[in-house]
């Protein structure tokens, strides 16, 4: 334990110096060839606090990264501003592939649409999107809403009276609510909470009638909640009885996507290599099983396809952002 402590202090010390140096120089560091990459441990920065879904999925990747590369993936946290503090600093970090950062959709698209959060969507060099948590409409086990139809009927009957909890404003949950409101032509009251934990607590405590959450939330609280519908292309293997929104006639798929980005001056070959490594992790059967059990849906968007993927998401979010009044 002493050992870990001294290691930690040492690591903090070196990181401190590294950040100071990189802020001072703020230029690209000597490029490195992809063959011997990674030549040392890789810092994986999560721009949120520990314990959330971004952290948990990164922790699962961590084990397999070491198997493939013989180097460790070291997870760091840089929380603040709903991710903005981290993303706005990414491009000033050392660009040799040994620093990567988690990125989240819709956050990285929506945040720069409003006021300036210190980064632009197109400045983030995403190299892989590896999974998403599909949006889900969740109710408590004893809720009178048995089906999505019940819910829509209640919302139609008294507009604005049905309350839903969710995590944050202009977040994936907020957007899901907005999209569903226009697809079903209903009016509900969305109440933002700080984090998914608080949103679930509000549902379980009967403070709200339903929650915009994810399949992961239902997986974690399977004994107390049920889902009315899931915003995935097909039914989730963990929940074969829960219909998708599409089956029920609402054209709604999506959720919180998670990927990784490198500082923008990172050499192309190293970026591709990173994309390959994380693609390989995504194929690992044990990793897939663990992710699926937690309610995630794995996707494979390697570096070569990131631009196309981002363009599609962007179009989708812009439409919602216009309805929400974030952009003109």
């Amino acid at each position: 334990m002493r050992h870990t402590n001294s290691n930690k202090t040492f690591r903090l010390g070196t990181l401190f110096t590294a950040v100071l140096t990189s802020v001072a120089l703020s230029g690209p560091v000597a490029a490195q060839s992809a063959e011997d990459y990674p030549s040392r441990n890789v810092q994986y920065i999560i721009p949120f606090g520990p314990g959330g879904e971004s952290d948990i999925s990164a922790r699962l990747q961590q084990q397999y990264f070491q198997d493939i590369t013989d180097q460790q993936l070291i997870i760091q946290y840089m929380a603040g501003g709903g991710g903005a503090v981290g993303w706005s600093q990414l491009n000033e970090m050392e660009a040799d592939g040994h620093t990567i950062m988690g990125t989240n959709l819709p956050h990285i698209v929506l945040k720069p649409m409003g006021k300036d959060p210190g980064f632009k969507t197109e400045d983030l060099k995403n190299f892989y999107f590896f999974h998403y948590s599909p949006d889900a409409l969740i109710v408590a086990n004893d809720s009178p809403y048995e089906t999505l139809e019940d819910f829509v009927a209640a919302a139609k009957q008294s507009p604005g009276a049905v309350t839903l909890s969710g995590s944050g404003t202009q977040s994936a949950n907020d957007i899901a609510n907005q999209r569903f409101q226009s697809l079903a032509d209903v009016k509900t009251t969305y109440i933002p909470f700080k984090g998914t934990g608080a949103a679930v607590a509000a549902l379980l405590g009967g403070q709200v009638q339903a929650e915009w959450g994810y399949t992961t939330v239902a997986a974690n609280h399977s004994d107390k909640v049920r889902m009315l519908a899931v915003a995935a292309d097909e039914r989730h293997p963990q929940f074969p009885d829960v219909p998708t929104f599409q089956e029920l006639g609402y054209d709604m798929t999506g959720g919180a996507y998670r990927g990784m980005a490198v500082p923008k001056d990172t050499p192309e070959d190293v970026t591709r290599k990173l994309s390959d490594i994380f693609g390989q992790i995504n194929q690992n059967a044990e990793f897939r099983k663990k992710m699926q059990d937690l309610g995630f849906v794995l996707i494979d968007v390697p570096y070569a396809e990131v631009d196309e993927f981002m363009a599609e998401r962007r179009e989708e979010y812009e439409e919602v952002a216009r309805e929400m009044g974030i952009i003109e």
Partner: protein
Amino acid sequence: METLGFMAAAFSPMNLLLAVLGVAAGIFIGALPGLSATMAVAVLVPVTFGMPTEAALIMLGAIYTGAIYGGSYAAILVNTPGTPSAIATTFDGYPMAQRGDGDLAVTLSTLSSMVGGLVGALALLTLAPLLAQIALKFGPVEYFWLAIFGLTLISALSEGSTLKGFIGAGIGLLLSTVGVAVVGADIRYAFGSQFLLGGVEIISALIGLYCIPVLIDLVATPSAHLEPPEEGRGVRFNESLGLMWRSKFNSLRSAVIGTIVAILPGAGGSIASLVSYSEARRTSPRHERFGHGEPDGVIATESANNATVGGGFIPTFVLGIPGTPPDAVILGALLVQGFRTGPEMFTTNANVTYTFIGGLFIATLLMLPLGLLIGRYAFKSIVSIPKALLVPSIAFMTVIGTYAIRNNPFDVVVMVVLGVLGWVLSRYGIKASPIVLGLILGPIAEQGFVQGYLMGNASGSVLTVFFGRPISMAIIALTLIAVFYPLWRARRDRIVKNSNEEPRHEH
């Protein structure tokens, strides 16, 4: 019986060794300002991946317990709460250390932390499902009123001027609005700076507001930092036991308050220790000595904050909703290990859960010998290090500690600015505690209010939502008592004084 069997599994030599290591490391990390319990647990998580689940959990629980307790060293010896839950420990702990009773304060803190830890763990073992249901009854409105209640404690806690206490709280509330609002996502007071977007980090504010003024005063005055203890009196264990026995009700009551507040996700240790501190002061026959080095103050806060460890695990295990930030990390580690929270934790996974609770008991008991050993040297070395060495070392630790919280160099700037501001303000009688309380409670009050308002609008009556719920009404009543009790007591004291000439027989 089966439960006991599972708990006994925690006693394997390997698990005991892990618990000792975890507690020692936790004390060490918690004692350094800025290195928090959350961080201690997060750093350890990858290490535990390769371990059996029980061993991993025992080690995580041990380091968490140790870190919360370790936070009291910094509070007592350098007036800097290592974690928000140790804020109230500075009120009496530091004055005790200044007058040469630092060894007594550390020993009392050790004993109280042990009592608190045991009560919290016992609640986790026996009452978890019941208490978790109570936690769910707290909605946005209840959190709003709870935060308001916390703010009124300022009037009870600020020495001298209540008005200055409220000015301090106002400054804290303003600071809490900096950054991206959770509800509404508005960007406030960021002045175009990407760094201010993240808001004022509470731990960096704590370090700045409490530690920097001490450092400035150390440099500005020729006297020694702390009075040296008399030679050869050891850790004053018997004296401490005597004081603990005298304050057994105080200690137990504080531990119960700590446990109950901790089951409310998001309220946490800082409120728990403040509520129990003000309760201890209200009921104590020595209430006028609180804030000037009264041992009961240390006993109250340290009993309460270690009870939050066990209490916080209640919503974490039963509901899957983390009670405190370190719980969130432990919950994440559990999910990565493939464990589900909820009723399964007490049925199919009962062996893991009960072994963990057993480990928590062991870790809590281990705090006594380890704490007395480490605490003795901590006090001695802080006293004997010459100022010329002490000041730069603490200054260095504050910078590293602040930076380490979110790997953000800007937090260091905020810490120093707030430190200087806090030093100036305290010269005018505005103390650090109300400012920090405002900073901690501001967001809870704001979110609760907006969420409650939205709920009220949806249901048709905002007033019913805010005033019509039983728990809210109880908290409102407590708030009124907190505001008016000091006024009433002052009035009564005046009357008693006036009637001294013609003594009455009523009491």
